């Protein structure tokens, strides 16, 4: 069923659709098809993903709430950070070596299939769940 949805998406959309997996604070995974050129903050907002408090300053580099953790192979290929992003990221909870602010990362085709994690602040005892959504 997912491959049928995938081909329907590719045929019917004008912008390139990229598959991105988001894992939220509780370990819940959401898989969404996003348009090339959107930032990851745009994606979270548009797709109404369940990530509490994401993007408080609405993408203006005045907070660190859109902090996302990337796979190393993806992180290494991202555009380098400007000082202002590093300044904000330095305040983020659970900072890692592959952390970026979602509002500064624009989706590109080569990111197809990547997984991004929201830093875990509280360990959820319920374990992981998967929610696959194709749009």
């Amino acid at each position, binding site marked *: 069923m997912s491959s049928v949805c995938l081909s329907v998406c590719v045929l019917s959309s004008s912008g390139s659709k990229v598959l991105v997996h988001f894992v939220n604070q509780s370990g819940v995974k959401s898989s969404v098809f996003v348009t090339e050129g959107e930032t990851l903050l745009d994606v979270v907002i548009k797709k109404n993903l369940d990530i509490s408090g994401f993007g408080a300053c609405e993408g203006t580099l*005045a907070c660190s709430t859109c902090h996302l953790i990337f796979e190393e192979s993806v992180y290494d290929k991202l555009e380098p950070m400007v000082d202002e992003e*590093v300044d904000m990221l*330095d305040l983020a909870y659970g900072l890692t070596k592959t952390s970026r602010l979602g509002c500064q990362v624009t989706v590109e085709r080569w990111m197809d299939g990547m997984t991004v994690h929201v830093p875990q*602040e509280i360990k959820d005892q319920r374990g992981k769940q998967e929610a696959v959504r194709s749009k």
Partner: protein
Amino acid sequence: MLTGVRGLSSSSGPRVCIVGGGPAGFYTAQQLLKARQDAAVDIYERLPVPFGLVRFGVAPDHPEVKNVINTFTQTAQHERCSFHGNVNVGKDVTIDELRQAYHAVVLSYGAEGNRSMGIPGEDLPGVFSAKDFVGWYNGLPSNKELHPDLSFETAVILGQGNVALDVARILLAPVEMLKETDITQNALEALAGSKVRRVLIVGRRGPLQIACTIKELREMVNLPNTRADMLPADFEGIAEALKDLPRPRKRLTELMMKAVKEGGDDKAEKCWGLRFFRSPVEVLAGADEKRAAGIRLALNKLEGSGESVRAEVTGQLEDVDCGLIISSIGYKSIPIDPAVPFDPRRAIVPNEMGRVQDTAGLYCSGWVKRGPTGVIATTMNDSFDTARVLIQDMEAGKLDLSVNKPGAQAITALLQTRGVRMVLFSQWEKINAEEEKRGKSLGKAREKLLDVDEMLKIRNVFISIFF
């Protein structure tokens, strides 16, 4: 149609009361509404207007930080949420009365007081708390008559956190940078006529303990027409320590050292400097004994290492001539109701993960819970934590949800009999529109109303149009 007032207490879901309409209150409400589709949340705020320090604390030239107001507005407009402004909890209604009307009460009322320096001369004219100075330029009604005298060349700020840097930046920023913001018109005019040219930002300990964050320091370094005036002696040994520092502290320290080395444009008219290892011991009066003319600082040395570095006196003193002294050593929570436990030493409500000590059904979030430090995101995470704990208690049966609670219906009736003129969110929106309108005519983002009576008048106009 009365918006913001919900229907009768026919719902059997949990009713939660939140005391305080700033970031802690709104983020706690947000999380509760999301986690329980049957929960109703009522926010009570002392001022007629919402948003707390987002409105009265965040600097006028940081409008992006205020974007959170949009998400708070959505929360206030949620059908299961209602905002009640101009309600002074502790005076107009007691905590016990709220606890009777609701299944749970969350204290999110922040820190409206400030730590005092505790030194002679602190009460002389010319000495202000940063809380009051910031309140003055941000239009907090109780600070509208502050009238700080800005006719002196040197200002000394005690404390080196982000609030101290905000104050320094507002004192030295070119007026062009401020004139389109939501800074109050009287502050803008006072700053336009200001003679302050030199601002020293003084801390007890050393460069590695500075409490501000890099964004605010960078803004000082980049401030037009100003140069940095640091003491190289304060930075002895710092270069060697850099390599062992975690990235955030390392970058912050490197930026300071760059400012020490480069200084800035010699032709700049204004200057700012960080001064370390200095604690205030006395405010010195001028010859006429009538106002502050200087500050006496004690020189410290550092003992200990890592997180537990502390300042110890050396016995040496230093006097600095200055006409404006701003103490920025911390906000402070105050007890608002004798029924609520309060720790006067730490100035917080004693709690375990947001559950108020020995008081079932009472919770806290934000600065009143953890102390007055951190940015909005810190408070956001903390509020989410308290909300989760509250929800857990509901689900574990620690709160008796089988009892019907009247919620806002009972409290608003009580407030009406006491002559309290509440401001509902839709009425705040009218005040908001008026502020934006006045701002527009001055070329500014908004012109804040400074007077509670004026705010209530605008609210009344709204009522009379519809009824």
